[in-house]
């Protein structure tokens, strides 16, 4: 095998792998990208029923209700323009609070309720989840950056 041919073979294998990986990635993007919707988006955009998506906003004050089984929760997420009812079974993250930002992942059912599979709390309470801040900015209800300033002096 000459040097040229060896280089060609290596290049072909690399291309094959790269091409295969690209195909896998594109295919996975088709099925597995999770889009974010604000409550207003849910009202105004067509939303596929049954597909995994994320919603976010503020937990409406006084909206958290617990079923008699003690495990299933119902609450309303709002961007102060529109709202969506969410139900979730399980232990809430430590930072879940009425009036605070929240992001939930799950599916929209046909009746317009959101069935959350997980409620995310990867932020500490000094920060607003970024998606939520964006959603509030879009709905025009954003008041200043003081809640996202974090520890920056």
């Amino acid at each position, binding site marked *: 095998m000459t*040097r040229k041919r060896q280089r060609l073979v290596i290049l072909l294998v*690399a291309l094959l792998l790269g091409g*295969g990986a690209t195909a896998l990635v594109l295919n996975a993007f088709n099925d597995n990208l999770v889009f974010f919707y604000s409550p207003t988006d849910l009202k105004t955009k067509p939303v596929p029923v049954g597909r995994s998506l*994320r919603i976010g906003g503020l937990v409406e004050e006084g909206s958290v209700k617990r079923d008699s089984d003690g495990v299933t929760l119902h609450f309303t997420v709002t961007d102060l323009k529109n709202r969506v009812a969410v139900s979730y079974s399980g232990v809430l993250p430590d930072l879940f609070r009425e009036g605070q930002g929240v992001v939930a*992942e799950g599916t929209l059912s046909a009746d317009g309720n959101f069935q959350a599979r997980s409620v995310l709390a990867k932020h500490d309470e000094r920060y607003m989840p970024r998606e939520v801040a964006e959603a509030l900015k879009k709905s025009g209800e954003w008041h200043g950056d003081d809640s996202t300033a974090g520890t920056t002096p």
Partner: protein
Amino acid sequence: MIVELGHYALILAFAVAMLQSTIPVIGAQRNNARWMAVAKPGAITLFLLIAFAFASLMRAHILSDFSVRNVVENSHSLKPMLYKITGLWGNHEGSLLLWVLILAIYGAAVALFGNRLPTRLKARALGVQAMVALGFLAFMLFTSDPFERMFPAPPDGNDLNPLLQDPGLAFHPPMLYLGYVGFSMAFSFAIAALIEGKVDAAWARWVRPWTLAAWIALTAGIGLGSWWAYYELGWGGWWYWDPVENASFMPWLLGTALLHSAIVVEKRDALKAWCILLAILTFGLSLIGTFLVRSGVLTSVHAFALDPARGIFVLALLVLYVGGALALFAWRAPALKGGGLFQPVSREGALLLNNLLLATACATVFIGTLYPLFLDVTGGGTVSVGPPFYNATFLPVILPMLLLMGVGPLLAWKRADLAGALTRLWIAGAAALAIAALTWWLHRGGPLLALVGMAAGSWVAVSVFVELGTRIGIGRNGMATSLRRLFQLPRSAVGMTVAHLGLAIAIFGITGAAAWKEEHVANLAVGQSLDLGAYEFRLDEARRIDGVNYWAYRGRFTVSRDGETVATLYPERRLYWVQHMPTTEAAIHTNGLADLYAVLGEPDGKGGWTVRLYREPLVALIWGGVLVMVLGGLVSLSDRRYRVGAPAQRRAAIATARAA
């Protein structure tokens, strides 16, 4: 006063880094020995200055000096001492100081122990190392000064984020940084070699121990982080393909590739340009990780501050270092003369394929991590990429790699006998099929991926032993000869065997945790019990206790199986009163094969508690496997041939002795 001295030391360090990044490099270019000699004292001075700065900030944290802003914002007089110490790097400025300190430690280590390195290579490598330090010192001094004073000094501090008040903080960040920053050494050597225009077996031998040390630390750091995320509820479990986790995983994947390609450079004098490219990209990914985590583009517990100016500064450093290095690579790499040709079926062929697969796997993770950011910046909407994406892209690439892992070590250098290797591996193939069948039978089908995972783990584990057996000639020689050969194996070979075995163990753990996790969430009153599989969890009590800087409800679960008590678990629900922040402390009992995991949720006000119980089979093997991989790395690192300061003469003497 000492705080100001620390600040001053940091500024001096900046000046020293400036000298060290220019004079030795110019000296190497002009072949001026005295200019090159600046590198060694420079690196040591740089280390001493940064260590002093670090110590002075540490002192402020330990003594709770609330005139320092960094202490005020991250400490509280009641905080336990462990977290006063570790809280230093539990924030943006302090963690950067740790980053730079570790960079300086590596530099000083090369200066002190690299006596046998060629003067020019050493001068250049230390110069490049100082250039990296220079950028990050500038970043600290201009945007993230840890020594800023606060006047008037408040009576007490704001306390550290309670999520970070965990022993994990003591080990996870320093280990991770030792790994991230350790790859700067490979980077510096690569740039030095590019300037020199020469890469040879000796170069690979010098780079290998540094790369290996970084790899060991990064492996341990990722393992610790994953363990922390596992026992801390709400972080998504031991691995969630979170961008921050990926940020540490990408350099690990490429670093692993680098480790393997350096072997080819050393043994066969081939793949040089590729190896250099990997060294650049690995450190580049470490920098990208720092950027992702520190810039605040990702929201997570790791993003200490959301300040765009800092993000742009890190991005600029990233472009400067990686862009500059790649430009240099494009210019100089053609000058690196490739070594001999090689056959596709050979050890080097297998290592090359391993490299391509690892790089491809890394690319899929890279796309999944950065695509949402890209889409966000271009206005394409907010999306997130979760575990299903990685299951569909990463796994199909990494599975052939595992298959190859069994075969590769059995192939000889130059030209190998694939059929022979496969014949010897029949037992590994049989074991894989048997384990898959057994799993299928035990779990009445079980998810397909679980069968594949168990088979892959068995394949790798058994093939590791087949390779070891072949190497020591089991069956061909007598038992005594084989044993003698076992003890005479070079440490690097033993290290490989152990590390590969560690991966196999981790695969079993990953498969078990992903496939057979049992979960039960319920509302439970004190005295009631709940069944989870064969186990019965009884909530005996939930009472209030007081901690140093929090109060908590502590539950007591008695876990029994067939009437016999297996474990008592004490999960807690804490409220840290300085920041008014609740945290949930899970309680875990492990017997090595399965974990019992209990969480106390919120009370319902009527005497009931939301509780969450898990049984996680095999999950402990993940960290067991990581530990074995780290051990393997350490064994390999202790190989005499790679000992950093190993005198060349002695090596030569041994060679003559062997030849005689």
